[in-house]
Structure formats: C-alpha cells, structure tokens
C-alpha cells in the first residue's frame, strides 16, 4: 500500500468491482450500509442469504486495515449473523475471511463472508483437529509468542497480565533474553503512559473534534504500523 501513489489507488478503485459496488456505481443486492462498510448478497452463494461485508475504502487484505475498522467489521458481522438466524430460520452461521490467494481469496478487495448454515448442507468449512506432539507445540508457541509480542507489544493489555505471560514464555529459553525482554517491557510501559495521556486529552475535547481526530488517526495508523510484508501480501494478490 505504501508504495502506491494516490493516482494509482484511484486507478485500482476504478477497476475494482467491489469499490464500484461500494460507491453505488454498480448495482448489487444491498442489505446494509453505513459510512465504513456495505453488506451485499453474494451472487455465487454457498447457501441462500450468503452475505459479503465489504469496506468502502479499498484494502487488498485485512492486515492493511486499522483496528477501529476491523473492530467495526466484527461488530456488524455479529449483528448480521444474528439477522440471518432470525430471518432465514437457519441453524448456524460461518464467518469467513481469506487473506491471500493461498487462503482462497479471489478478489483484490477485502471482504468478510457470512454464510447461513443448516445441518448436512454440504458447505464444508470443517477445520480438521490434528494431534500435535508436546515438543512441536512448545516450539511453535515460543516462535509465535515472540512474533505476537512484537506486533501486539504496543497495544498490550493490563501490565500485570502481560508480565505473567512473558515469564511463562521465558521458561524454555531463559538466559540472556531476560534482560532484553525487560527492556522491552519498560518501553511498553512508557508508551502506555503516553497513550493514556493522549487519550485523556482527546476525552476533554468536544465531540466534533473527537470525530475529526479519529478519522485522522485511522489514516495515520496503517502508515505507521504496517510492516513491509504487507507489500508482499499485496503482490501475492497479483497487484
């Protein structure tokens, strides 16, 4: 995304069928719309009532989206799932997102599927449950824990709990890394207090101002946080 100029983005949006649907230039069976997202019926449904939730802004994949937008998508997906259960007398729903061609993503525009389900409807979407050895579990855990801490470190929850988890993760490795992680912790704490300060400031300002800052934030966030791999993901989608 970062390497794309506004002109290029505009060209992409003009070619993207889902951007055209979101802006109303192409007709679709729209079931919900707000300022951020639009919900339409999938023309190739897994079951009748299959809904696609599409962002109005053009994102290739979900990792490009800021937290407030992914959160909003989650809330609306939950509410629409409830609507399907009430409206279609179905027995369940699947919420499905694919990031990347390998995961089954076909369009170059982020979307979330809400699929109505009935018993024995042969839609599939079964996730296998495989046995895994203790060693493999621990190996994957320590790698993933580092990866998750790296990305979520800045926005981690209550300090006490994060400390507990870090202690746990240290058990298998221990040694030199302890000091490193302690430094990281301090950094996190510092950032925490900064965040709190800025938050209390925004609370004091008027509502109108809040809206402005939040929209600014959403524009700034992806630029700050998106790692270089996002371009790789975009490339995988054939961009």
């Amino acid at each position, binding site marked *: 995304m970062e390497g794309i100029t506004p002109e290029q983005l505009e060209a992409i949006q003009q070619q993207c069928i889902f951007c055209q649907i979101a802006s109303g230039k192409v007709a679709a069976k729209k*079931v*919900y719309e707000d300022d951020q997202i639009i919900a339409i019926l999938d023309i190739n449904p897994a079951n009748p009532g299959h809904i696609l939730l599409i962002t109005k802004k053009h994102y290739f994949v979900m990792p490009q989206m800021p937290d407030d937008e992914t959160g909003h998508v*989650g809330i609306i997906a939950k509410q629409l*799932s409830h609507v399907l259960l009430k409206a279609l007398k179905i*027995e369940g729903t699947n919420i499905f*997102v694919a990031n*990347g061609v*390998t995961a089954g993503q076909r369009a170059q525009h982020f979307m979330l599927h809400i699929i109505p389900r009935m018993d024995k409807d042969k839609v*599939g979407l079964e996730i296998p449950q495989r046995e895994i050895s203790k060693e493999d579990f621990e190996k994957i855990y320590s790698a993933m824990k580092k990866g998750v801490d790296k990305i*979520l470190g800045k926005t981690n929850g209550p300090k006490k709990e994060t400390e507990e988890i870090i202690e746990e993760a240290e058990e298998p490795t221990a040694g030199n890394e302890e000091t490193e992680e302690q430094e990281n912790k301090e950094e996190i704490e510092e950032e925490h207090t900064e965040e709190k300060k800025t938050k209390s400031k925004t609370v004091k300002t008027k509502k109108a101002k809040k809206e402005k800052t939040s929209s600014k934030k959403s524009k700034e966030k992806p630029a700050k946080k998106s790692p270089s791999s996002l371009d790789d993901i975009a490339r995988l989608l054939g961009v």
Partner: protein
Amino acid sequence: MTCEICDQIKNKKGILYQDENIAAMLAQKPGAVGHIYVVPKKHIPILEKIPDKVIAQMFAKANKISMACFETLGVQGTNLIIQNGMPAGQHHSHCILHIIPRKENDGLNLLWTPKQLTEEEMSTAEIKIKENTGQVGIIEKEKEKPVEIKKTEEIKEDKAEEDLRIKELERLP
C-alpha cells in the same frame, strides 16, 4: 460442565495474548501449523452473546496476530473463521475466532461450491434479511440506560431459539 477453552486460559497453556476481555492461544488440536484461537475470556457459547466491545477487540487483535503469522511462520495466507452453531462446524461450547495460517498444498479445503440461485430465490433472501436489519449498526454502549432496556426485551424474545443452540453445544465433550 468443563470447557477446554476455559481450562486452557486457567492453566495458561499456550497463551499468546490476553487482556481483561479476550485471550489468544495456540490450538491444542490444530488444523494447521500455528492454528490460533481468539476467544472471549468469559465462557460465551455463541457469537451473538458476545458484547460488541469484545467482538471488536477479538477482530482487531486477530488481525494483528494474523500479521504475526505471516512474519513468524512464513505462510502465504491466513483464514479467519467463526463456526457459529453445530451445523457450522462448532466443536467447542466456547465461541472461537480461528486463525488458520495457510501454505500452498497444505491439504486444507476451506472453500465451498457456489450454488446457482434463481433471481426469485435471491430476491426472497434479500427481502427477508432486509426486514430484520433495523437494529444493525446500533452499537451497544456501556451504561446507556434507554438502549439497555430495549435490548433486554429483545433478548427475551430470542431466548427460546438461542437456548436450543446453547443446549446443543453443552452436550459437546
């Protein structure tokens, strides 16, 4: 009633992230290498019972953790899936947002065969859904009384159908 997910949170096994509302953990029976569960910390069996604030957190964190999968595991894709109800494949009595890292030829088939519907069938679905979308987009706010009163009434109406699904799920091992 024991819940494997609640137990895993309690025993702190494979916990990758947690805050006061949500937790992310490595699946003990994974569908793929690095399969992760993002869950509400409270025992909530079905998606619709998760408060707006919590589901928003689950999605935002799941997205970040999915990014960590790309970087850490070197995968080419991720799927985010919620199986809501037994016909949708739900195995646990605790609602889970699955993050499934994907690699080429990993043997997973998480795609469906599209159905061909007539224009009439599509329109019927559209009308039925639209009749019920009045409440969509109204985000629950904490400590906002008038909204709460309306919501409790609504929940009462839905209880009958939802209880059935919860009962079904409680039968799960």
